[in-house]
């Protein structure tokens, strides 16, 4: 077993609208914050993994030109909504491989006002029908053969769970959103900190049944960055740095293995189950040991299925598990106490580090009003459609 890797410093920007900051500005703010939080500088970093999806690729080098050109290798990372987790994992792998003893991962996105991110445009039909593409289509298929929109895809994922196990309806999904919006009122970095009543959520604009607007992740700007360090290097640092360091007890990335139907409707379940199982084995714990979970609630319909996929409940028992109140911040398994993607926001490439920032804050006892008291172990999960799943399990330092 390779040596343990720790998070030494971590930072997230305020999520929301940042009209005066570009992608590099936001990434630089996160990086400078993470370095300061860890008490180190760019000179200490041996690798940089830079995640960004919408900026056209190649974030890392422009970022270095603002925060420190030290000649270290840059890995520009893109892996859909799992980009941030993939960047972190890239830095972790470099440390585990023994290439360096400290590294930096950053994820950033400018998404405020972006609207639908897939299925947001459809080509005009041609004036002569000519087959093209992998389906030999003569005209656009989005809206004619199902939907490409994310709210629609994830709506079906939640409904499929309901079909398989029962006990699921529009109100249940809306109540999940009610929980996350309520949680967000304690998070000053969330895009939205507004509590919605169940009636307001169910009565809001329908996007893709059963997901209304507040049940969808909020497009926003934001960045998050983390400094990672090897166990051996950490032992040479100050006691304060060792005390605040958070152990990465598991770092896992999976893709979706072939199953019937997986190319018809994205299967976000099996790869999450696989990632969770590997992560629990790596960390030597079970889901019952978790004090809090930040999972990928890109839509209210997604949160439900991941209770099950992460093993937080019995198979098929996600609806009852939620109805028990377990996932509220005062429940036995608090989920998305940050407000989740529905209210904290979802600046895609930042999300997979921002959720780790949230967990680290609780493990360090620095989460202020929303602190989960005595938190020792937490899990952060992201899903990128396509698919990629990142799961990290984090443990409080014993120092």
């Amino acid at each position, binding site marked *: 077993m390779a040596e343990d890797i720790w998070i030494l410093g971590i930072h997230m920007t305020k999520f929301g609208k940042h009209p005066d900051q570009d992608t590099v500005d936001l990434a630089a703010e996160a990086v400078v914050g993470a370095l300061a939080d860890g008490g180190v500088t760019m000179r200490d970093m041996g690798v940089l993994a830079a995640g960004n999806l919408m900026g056209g690729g190649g974030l890392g080098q422009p970022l270095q030109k603002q925060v420190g050109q030290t000649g270290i290798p840059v890995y520009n990372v893109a892996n859909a909504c799992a980009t941030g987790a993939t960047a972190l994992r890239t830095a972790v792998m470099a440390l585990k491989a023994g290439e360096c003893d400290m590294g930096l991962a950053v994820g950033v996105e400018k998404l405020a006002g972006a609207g*639908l991110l897939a*299925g*947001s*445009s*459809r080509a*005009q*039909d*041609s*004036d*002569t*029908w000519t*087959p093209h593409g*992998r*389906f*030999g*289509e*003569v*005209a656009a*298929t*989005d*809206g*004619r*053969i*199902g*939907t490409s*929109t994310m*709210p*629609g*895809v994830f*709506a*079906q*994922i939640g*409904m*499929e769970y*309901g*079909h398989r196990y029962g006990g699921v309806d*529009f109100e249940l999904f809306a109540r999940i959103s009610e929980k996350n919006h309520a949680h967000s009122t304690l998070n000053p970095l969330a895009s939205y900190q507004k509590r919605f009543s169940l009636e307001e959520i169910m009565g809001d*604009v*329908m*996007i*893709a*049944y*059963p*997901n209304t607007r507040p049940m969808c992740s909020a497009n926003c700007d934001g960045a998050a960055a983390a400094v990672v360090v090897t166990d051996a290097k950490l032992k040479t640092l100050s006691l304060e740095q060792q005390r605040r360091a958070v152990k990465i007890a598991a770092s896992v990335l999976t893709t979706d293995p*072939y199953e*019937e*139907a997986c*190319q*018809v*409707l994205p299967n976000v379940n099996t790869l999450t189950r696989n990632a969770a199982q590997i992560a629990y084995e790596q960390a030597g714990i079970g889901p019952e040991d978790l004090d809090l979970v930040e999972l990928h609630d890109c839509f209210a319909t997604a949160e439900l299925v991941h209770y099950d996929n992460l093993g937080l409940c019995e198979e098929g028992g996600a609806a009852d598990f939620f109805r028990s109140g377990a996932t509220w911040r005062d429940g036995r398994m608090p989920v998305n106490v940050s407000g989740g993607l529905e209210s904290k926001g979802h600046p895609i490439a930042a999300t997979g580090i921002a959720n780790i920032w949230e967990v680290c804050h609780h493990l360090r006892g620095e989460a202020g009003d929303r602190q989960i008291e005595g938190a020792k172990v937490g899990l952060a999960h992201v899903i990128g459609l396509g698919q990629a799943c990142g799961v990290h399990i984090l443990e409080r330092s014993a120092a």
Partner: protein
Amino acid sequence: MPERIPLVDYLVLDPEPRLVAHQCTACGARFFDRRNACAACGGTTFHPAEIATTGEVRAFTIVSLAAPGVPVPFVAAVIDCSGTSVRGNLINVDPDPEHVTLGMKVALATYVVGTDTHGTEAIGFGFEPLEGARHG
């Protein structure tokens, strides 16, 4: 009768409309797109497999916000056609949760997507409720 062309190549119009998948000769996995190899087993030989024209709704959503030019609302669904999952819209049904339910039985149906400058009709497919389904 005007010339007709299917919206996608896995929709076969004659003699009766049906969907035809590429089935891996080695492992039986079915795919609707042009294949390089089998995602399940890596096999590279495929044969055509006709998909059952009736099935059961396994998942659906009613899309109210879509790209400009996409008429809304519409029902997007996954249909279990005797063990093969198919993506398609539910058509000839009111797009609301009172009329669309999980587990409802549906049948393949076709419609005219549009006509090009040569007068050729593009034919699309969807699934309509089996009870009261229109035939012919």
